[in-house]
């Protein structure tokens, strides 16, 4: 492997994010608590510069460090999305942490470290880099989930996340080691070349594929590897939950597609059968269990599980499709789905973070009772996010589902599209229930403390970005569809 200084320039966005993270960690102890806002602005500035750099790298594909890192439009698409979500997270946390009395400057350091792990994951072309990126992302997230140290629920969420996350990393790593034994390399193109024309008759290859699917299944939170999700999403601070639900899922899908389509592409008939089963289980269980939840963070956790199921339809369609166009359409649909899902889910979690009840999170669905009468604008925004999550036109959620279902129909999986449509209709029930609670129910006058909303300019920016994304891409998805379509062309 040769090293050229030019390679460092290619990974400049990652280096900048890591530098900023280290800077935040170093500056945190020396700043007084009134100056800690500066750390948030430092993080935001870094993210803005990174997004500019990544956008400039979009048009030329290059690989660095002897091919273990690849910077192509596909990686840049995910990185732009991840940096954007991290920026929203910093803005949301800025107000939320003050409300929770969590004056940790290092929080922003963890957001950036986790982001750098995600960025490595999506531009990795070697299983080693993918593993390192995944671990960097997860280790930071374990800590962030338990940041509310005075709250046992938060610590419990952190411990559960850690145990199941480390367990799944162990399974993933074992799969990687078997794949290395079966193919003689950890480099994705070399793996693809080694398994071309081979089938799963080789027990080593079969075990490796299954273990990788299980390992990624945990990271993507698909049924039956989802059991950590509701607990962790409920217990973690809401700003962290929003970041996990959106960014870590997007990054995991980015790396997952790279491994399975690029590395194990010639086994796609086999793995698409595995993911078809996981996809159906995820759609059924995620949507049905979400119906009975009384805590909105738990409900949104099950909803995020269900959304991973919809995105998996695109993966299955890419695997089943016989033609190159079909495969491209499937992957485009997944990328589009995750990007649109980011806006609506982040928006919904922001409203949940804003609702406070006596110094605590107002995260029970009952706390939304009569919100429309007291805070009409917040209720209207929540309505838009819920309608979008349910997939009703003219919102972004509809466009996402439309492209995924189209990809499935083109791949000859019409029955799967119909099944998913049925479950989308079921999901409307629990999303519309929130709207019903907000608009049609009067708050009980006997309850003493009615929940209040925290407001700040930073939160307004977050909500404005989220709702603009949901409405704009719902009415006019062209630019995003073109961007995703362009990004997929450099893939493979």
């Amino acid at each position, binding site marked *: 492997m040769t090293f050229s200084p030019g390679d460092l320039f290619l990974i400049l966005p990652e280096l900048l994010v890591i530098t900023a993270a280290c800077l935040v960690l170093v500056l945190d102890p020396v700043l007084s608590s009134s100056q800690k806002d500066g750390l948030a602005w430092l993080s935001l500035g870094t993210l803005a510069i990174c997004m500019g750099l990544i956008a400039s790298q979009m048009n030329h594909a290059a690989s660095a460090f002897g091919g273990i890192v690849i910077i192509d439009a596909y990686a840049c698409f995910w990185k732009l999305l991840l940096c954007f979500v991290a920026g929203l997270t910093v803005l949301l946390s800025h107000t939320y942490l003050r409300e929770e009395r969590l004056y940790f400057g290092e929080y922003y350091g963890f957001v950036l470290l986790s982001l750098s792990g995600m960025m490595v994951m999506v531009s990795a072309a070697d299983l*080693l880099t993918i*593993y*390192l990126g995944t671990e960097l992302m997860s280790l930071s997230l374990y800590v962030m989930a338990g940041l509310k140290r005075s709250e046992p629920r938060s610590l419990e969420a952190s411990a559960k996340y850690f*145990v199941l996350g*480390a367990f799944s990393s162990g399974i993933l790593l*074992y799969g990687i080691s078997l794949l*290395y034994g079966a193919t003689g390399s*950890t480099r994705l193109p070399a793996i693809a070349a080694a398994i071309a024309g081979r089938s799963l008759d080789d027990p080593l290859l079969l075990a490796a594929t299954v273990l990788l699917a299980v390992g990624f299944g945990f990271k993507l939170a698909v049924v039956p590897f989802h059991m950590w999700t509701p*607990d962790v999403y409920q217990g973690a601070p809401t700003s962290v939950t929003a970041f996990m639900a959106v960014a870590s899922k997007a990054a995991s899908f980015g790396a997952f597609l790279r491994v399975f389509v690029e590395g194990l592409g010639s086994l796609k008939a086999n793995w698409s059968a595995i993911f078809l089963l996981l996809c159906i289980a995820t759609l059924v269980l995620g949507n049905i269990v979400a119906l009975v939840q009384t805590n909105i963070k738990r409900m949104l956790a099950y909803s995020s599980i269900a959304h991973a199921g919809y995105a998996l339809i695109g993966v299955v369609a890419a695997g089943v499709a016989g033609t190159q166009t079909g495969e491209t359409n499937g992957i485009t649909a997944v990328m589009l789905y995750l990007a649109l899902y980011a806006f609506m889910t982040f928006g919904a979690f922001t409203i949940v973070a804003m609702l406070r009840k006596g110094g605590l999170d107002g995260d029970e669905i009952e706390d939304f009772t009569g919100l429309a009468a007291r805070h009409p604008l917040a209720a209207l925004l929540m309505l838009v996010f819920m309608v979008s999550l349910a997939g009703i036109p003219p919102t972004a959620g509809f466009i996402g589902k439309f492209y995924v279902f189209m990809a499935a129909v083109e791949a000859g999986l019409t029955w799967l599209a119909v099944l998913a449509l049925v479950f989308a209709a079921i999901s409307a029930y629990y999303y519309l229930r929130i709207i019903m609670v907000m608009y049609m129910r009067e708050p009980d006058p006997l309850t003493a403390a009615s929940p209040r909303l925290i407001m700040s300019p930073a939160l307004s920016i977050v909500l404005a970005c989220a709702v603009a994304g949901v409405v704009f891409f719902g009415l006019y998805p062209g630019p995003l569809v073109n961007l995703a379509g362009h990004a997929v062309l450099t893939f493979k």
Partner: protein
Amino acid sequence: MTIPISYYLILSAIVFLTGVVGVLIRRNIIAILLSIELMLNATNINFVAFSEYLQDMGGQVFVFFALTVAAAEVAVGLAIIIALHRAKDSINIEEFNLLKW
């Protein structure tokens, strides 16, 4: 006389399964952490064995990274366990029941 590769693979599979079963049935979170370490070390046996078999250094490089990550993971894990122990006076996962498991 060289030891055939299959011996190493069987050993590592046994160690890995011990780890998996440990994670699933043990109730003490420290024991679970140790079981996770077993899983990671089973992987290292695989990498070294394959590396020797294939005459390729890539596997041994991977082991170094895997060891480092495992150490970082234990550091974070133990920190979380200590914080949890302070809050709940227990490291038995059955008692972590504020959230439905």
